[in-house]
């Protein structure tokens, strides 16, 4: 008997933004599979033109409501590079703190609300409100802790306020920062409970070695700053040269563009960072990895979610150290932003967003007005790798029912925690 399965998922649920899965499977072999982004394009790269850099950096965070701090930081770094602005250590520490908040809240959103229901065999978190209210509360608590870490630094997580080129419009209070430390302790406990919850779950078994790309920093597990590293190479590359290393290409069925470097596809995100920078994780995070059975290196895409849990522990432990460093350093009013002068120039900002490496690039005229803008988001970089994983995975599950195949493919998509609501993704290569 020949079996023919046509899988089509219109608007995969529980992901950020709109994407469709289509797969054609005949007699257990995969004829075609793809994940296409069908998000309405928003044209940030076009309409940022003409705006002053102060507006540009505020507008840039509006690219994405989940990784607002990442987009903001990438935009600030690019703008500061273009305007030749140096920032103080305090500003850098504060941004890193806000950043940890975002990574935590974004990961928690994914772990509990987006991917989580698959682990507990429910369609969404809402049935759990009655089944396991304490777990839902814990999820919300952790998510809020992330928000509040960003908030104590920048007034809000979506979309951060006080962060501007050069520094902050707001003078931070040691008491407020200090007060977060109790919350962090509580959060670390909640993470231990999270780890216990996740120890019991069964993840689909798929192993496929690929190229892992992330930022890397000599002194720390890279989120806010660093250079571009590929697991296929020894030497990192400066973010300024991102166009040389990350080659984008278009496909005709998607509004997103695909990316490659040393291989036809690469992976970026929590698992890539874990693989590339494992040694720099905090001790607690390493223990968490052990408790969760995540060994280094790991080539199982479904474990991306587990790597996120490990990173949550890292972020909270590191946030605690950052607060100590800030408070012990004595917080200065720092109105560095007032010294920022308009000038012509261009610059690149690269950060590790929760979902992977993110680039912003701007060019400004003498009045500080934007001449051109470009962004490369992590999900666009992951798409080729996601499809390669799908191709590797379908034969494994080809005998299953259509529902199971569909569900497993959706889970695979979710494991990447794709974030496509931003829909800014394309390099104009001919420029």
């Amino acid at each position, binding site marked *: 008997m020949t079996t023919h399965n046509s899988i089509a998922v219109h608007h995969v649920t529980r992901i950020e933004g709109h994407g469709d899965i289509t797969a054609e499977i005949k007699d257990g072999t995969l004829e075609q599979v793809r994940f296409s982004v069908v998000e309405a394009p928003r044209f940030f790269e076009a309409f940022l033109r003409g705006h002053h850099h102060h507006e540009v950096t505020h507008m840039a965070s509006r690219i994405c409501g989940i990784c607002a701090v990442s987009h903001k930081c990438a935009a600030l770094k690019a703008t500061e590079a273009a305007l030749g602005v140096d920032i103080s250590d305090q500003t850098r520490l504060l941004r890193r703190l806000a950043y940890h908040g975002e990574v935590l809240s974004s990961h928690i959103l994914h772990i509990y609300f987006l991917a989580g229901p698959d682990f507990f065999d429910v369609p969404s978190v809402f049935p759990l409100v009655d089944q396991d209210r304490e777990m839902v509360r814990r999820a919300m608590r952790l998510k809020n802790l992330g928000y509040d870490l960003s908030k104590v630094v920048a007034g809000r997580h979506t979309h951060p306020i006080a962060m501007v080129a050069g520094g902050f419009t707001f003078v931070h209070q040691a008491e407020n920062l200090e007060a977060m430390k109790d919350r962090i302790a509580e959060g670390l406990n909640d993470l231990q409970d999270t780890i216990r919850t996740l120890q019991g779950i069964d993840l689909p078994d798929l192993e496929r070695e690929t190229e892992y790309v992330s930022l890397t920093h000599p002194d720390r597990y890279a989120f806010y700053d660093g250079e571009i590293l590929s697991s296929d190479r020894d030497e990192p590359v400066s973010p300024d040269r991102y166009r040389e290393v990350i080659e984008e290409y278009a496909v005709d069925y998607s509004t997103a563009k695909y990316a490659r470097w040393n291989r036809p596809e690469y992976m970026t995100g929590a698992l890539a960072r874990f693989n590339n920078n494992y040694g720099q994780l905090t001790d607690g995070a390493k223990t968490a990895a052990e408790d969760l059975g995540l060994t280094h290196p790991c080539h199982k895409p479904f474990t991306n979610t587990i790597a996120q849990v490990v990173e949550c522990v890292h972020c909270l432990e590191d946030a605690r150290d950052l607060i100590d460093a800030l408070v012990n350093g004595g917080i200065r009013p720092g109105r560095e932003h007032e010294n920022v002068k308009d000038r012509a120039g261009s610059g690149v900002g690269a950060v590790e967003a929760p979902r992977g490496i993110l680039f912003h690039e701007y060019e400004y005229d003498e009045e500080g007005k934007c001449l051109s803008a470009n962004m490369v988001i992590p999900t666009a970089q992951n798409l080729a790798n996601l499809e390669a994983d799908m191709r590797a995975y379908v034969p494994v599950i080809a005998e299953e029912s259509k529902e199971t195949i569909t569900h497993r493919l959706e889970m695979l998509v979710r494991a990447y925690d794709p974030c496509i609501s931003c829909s800014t993704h394309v390099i104009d290569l*001919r420029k």
Partner: protein
Amino acid sequence: MIHFKKKPRVAFFDFACCEGCQLSVLEMEEKLLDLLSHVEVVEWREVMSEKSDEYDIAFCEGSITRKRDVERIQSIRERAETLVSLGACASISCHNALKNRWPMKEVVEMVYGDSGGHIDTIPARPVSDVVPVDYQIRGCPVSLPEFETVFKHILTGQSYDPPNQPVCVECKLNDTLCVYEKGMVCLGPVTRCGCNAVCTAYGDACQGCRGLIDEANTEAPARVLFREDLHPIMAEVARKNPLTRKEILAKFTVYNDTSEPDEEEESSDDNA
């Protein structure tokens, strides 16, 4: 006395936006659980797999930027008794409308080069430009206390108009220092409040994300800042912000481009 109807069914939908509004709603923790206990959530793609075509209250986030969005929002409108525009994109079109400054073909080309042939895009419009909206929750992102207020208004059958007072009022109620005193230019005097003046509380100027108040005096800054006889505070503002009249007026449109989308300019391609 509050006379309840049966548990209304609630659905969340999104169009072109950053999805930050519906996500920040999750920040409400206990309050969200309290609010949701009065309703039944039947569709919320972002956080649940179930879908439903039957709902009473639809929260719609995002701007209408494609032909198929128009059809989709119309069908949502037909089904929902109550339609809420959630956030700036849905209510006043936020940054999305900035692309309307160019013909769609040009915008597509700017971003996608020649490879943008398959892209379906029309001038961005807020939801209320396409279908009637019962409640607007403005802001980029929405302010959670206001979301809560509107939710409670819906549950208790009350109407809700976005506050028609400028942000300055909330600055004063919070005893926040006016950023003009620091020499910055602020859009607060012409922008609707409801955000609890959060940007100014954190030392930044209001960016105008909630749209203009009714009868906003958008001519005032141009009339003020170019005067010779300014008093010390405003003199400092004028010195630090050598803006042209055009630049001042442009500031009002960053979130709130009220210029009419060019009707003749339609989707650059229909095949999507």
